[in-house]
């Protein structure tokens, strides 16, 4: 008796929701970035789990996971660069103080 796929899926859903909560609620921009990473990981878990359990003959799941890795790396690089330059100009990276884009 081994682990059913549903466990993985539920785990991924929980991880995703935790990340979503972080994205919506954290003040610090870097923390938001971390939460985004959590969500991406949840997605990867789902992909790999489905690959392993249902579609183990074609490799799509893993391939997409690799793509997600690449996207995540790029996103973090650019995001952190933006935060650092914002921090240089405005002295803060608190997400609700970066609100120039308003009336």
């Amino acid at each position, binding site marked *: 008796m081994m682990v059913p796929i549903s466990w993985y899926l539920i785990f991924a859903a929980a991880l995703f929701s935790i990340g979503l909560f972080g*994205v*919506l609620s954290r003040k610090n921009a870097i923390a938001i970035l971390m939460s985004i990473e959590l969500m991406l990981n949840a997605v990867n878990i789902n992909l790999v789990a489905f690959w392993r359990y249902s579609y183990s003959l074609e490799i799509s799941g893993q391939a997409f996971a690799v793509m997600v890795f690449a996207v995540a790396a790029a996103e973090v690089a650019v995001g952190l660069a933006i935060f650092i330059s914002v921090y240089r100009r405005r002295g803060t990276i608190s997400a*609700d103080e*970066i*609100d120039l*884009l*308003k009336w």
Partner: protein
Amino acid sequence: MNIESIIWLIPFPPLIAFFLIVLITNRRKKASHTIAICAALISWLLSLLVYWFASSIDNLGQNPIVSSIPWIPTGDSWLQIGVQFDPLTAVTIFFVAWTVLMIFIYSVGYHNFGHPKGDHDRPGLPPHGATVSDVHGHKNLVPSIEPMYSRFFAFIGLFAFGMYLLVVSNNLLTLFIGWEIMGLCSYILIGFWYAKLSARAAMIKAFLTTRVGDVFMLLGIVYLYSKTGTLYFRDILYNPEVLHELGTTASGFLGFSVAGLIGLLLFIGAVGKSAQWPLHVWLPDAMEGPTPVSAMIHAATMVSAGVYLTLRIFPLLAAGMEHGHPTQIMNIIAFIGTFTAIFAATIAIAQNDIKRVLAYSTISQLGFMFAAIGIGAYIAAAFHLVMHAFFKALLFLGSGSVIHGMEHGIYHTGEHIDPQDMFNMGGLRKRMPVTFITFVIGGLALAGFPLITAGFWSKDEIFADAFGHNHWVVFITLALAALLTAYYTMRQITLTFLGESRTDAAEHAHESVWTMTLPLIILAFFAIVLGWVGIPEDFPFIGNIIPNYAHDFVGETLLAEPETVNFEFHPLITSIIVSLGGLGLGWIVYRKIKSGAVDPAKKALGPIFVILENKYYFDELYDFLFVKPAYRVAENFSYKWMDRKIIDGAIHWVAQMSIVIGSFLRNFIDKPIVNGFGDWVGESTKKLGTVFRSIQTGRVQQYMLLALVTLAGFTALLYYLLVAGH
């Protein structure tokens, strides 16, 4: 490529050249004159090609080369435009092609191509010369290039287009178009140096005067069209029924027949164009333009156009003439021509300006032609037209060359004298041999020097016709005019070239460049040999060496080929006597004129000479009769009363009313209703904005939260409606 299409193509190269120069190469002088001359060359080639082809056709006059296309729909019928090539066109286009090409080439030299830019030349003024320092370093003044060089070539290109169009057209309308184009170009080119007050006055004078003629001509065209329903030469002039019908129906105007009235109206146009009395006053002033313009427009081509037109419509003029008795209109033409001939000749003998003399001689010679037409000497008129075109162009170009040489001398000496005054010249034969010889040839041709020159044969034919048809008045008057012609021609030659130099400028005069002398030589050649094609067969000794090509070729243009008057000795003797006598008289009177001396004729003639000098006070007369009244009417009636009181008053009243209405609309409709609505919209938008903008906090997280809440809400709603609903 058939011959018709070639005829179609003849006018267009100069037009293309005009646009090319105006639009593209107007900054580059060399390119401009290259384009213009190439265009003239192409037209020349095509013309001679067609001429050669056409002269090989026998009986060309009765079945000319014609091609036409429908152009403007006039109600049920189409207005045809097209080209035709009959003997008259052939001879005309022959001299047009030659003179135009020659004058194009001449202009290059005349406008000092290749010389430096002037020190203080500016567009609108003749070049004043440029100072250059030679190898030894001391400066001297040399002619400077025309500032508006390219423009000149563009304009004469356009003019050439007009002339070719006029010549090849087969109907009065396109002929009139070419006619008016030439009028415009004449206007532009007389005032080419528009910064000169005299030039401006001359251009306006010429334009208005010719306009008088053109208005009548347009009337004539319209009348003709209303009568016959066509302007197509072949339909009218070569159609005996139409001619007879026109000739016999009375127009109800001074007893003119319809044909006569039409002929009169068209002839008035010709009078304006060809500067016949009483519309002659513009031509002498037109000499303000550059000399090539004087030579081409005001000697060779445009003024000849009047004669050409009159020759064209000769059948119309002659319509209704029974066995030799000329019609009423022909008598008028004869009178105008004869009078103009003697009248202009008398003025010419008292002028000192070398170009003015030629201008009046042009008027007088055109008078010869009209007189010949008036007495029915169709061929003689055409013949003299061609001859005159060549030797008058030659004379003008020669005078331009002389003026150029004089200017050269003036640049050298720095005197302040008029380079066109013949009394400042003298002894130029040594300085400018080529110009001298060619000018003498032209002058002899003009004077009708016996046997060799072209002018002799053409004039002799006119005399013969006048004598043969017993027009005594015309004969004697023309003989007198011929005498005067020879006299003033010799006077001109003597004053200009013979004797001793009367000024240092004349002493230092200088022969012109080859671009100016080459045309002189070519034209001189024609001025001699071209006359020989018109020697009557029964002329003693030399009569049958060359067939009377002019008579045979040109004569068949008419339906009824005019019978050749049989040869008699009186007109021959007369023409020889008048020419030789005039020449001799001129030489005797003017052979030794010291510098600063007054004209010897002045002492002899006394007050008459003064009248002649002042051209019979015609300018003053016209000034008193037309110009001043026109000014007065314009000032008092048109301006003060009509314009200021009535028109302006009406306008002011309308303005006041509209102001009142406008203020009413503004205060009672615009302000309360329209603006009120607009303001209301703006204000409410602003209010809504203040309400809604609080949503936009600029915080990404809030946006996302809002979006997700909305998404969740909608999803739940959809789920409820779609799934849980049933």
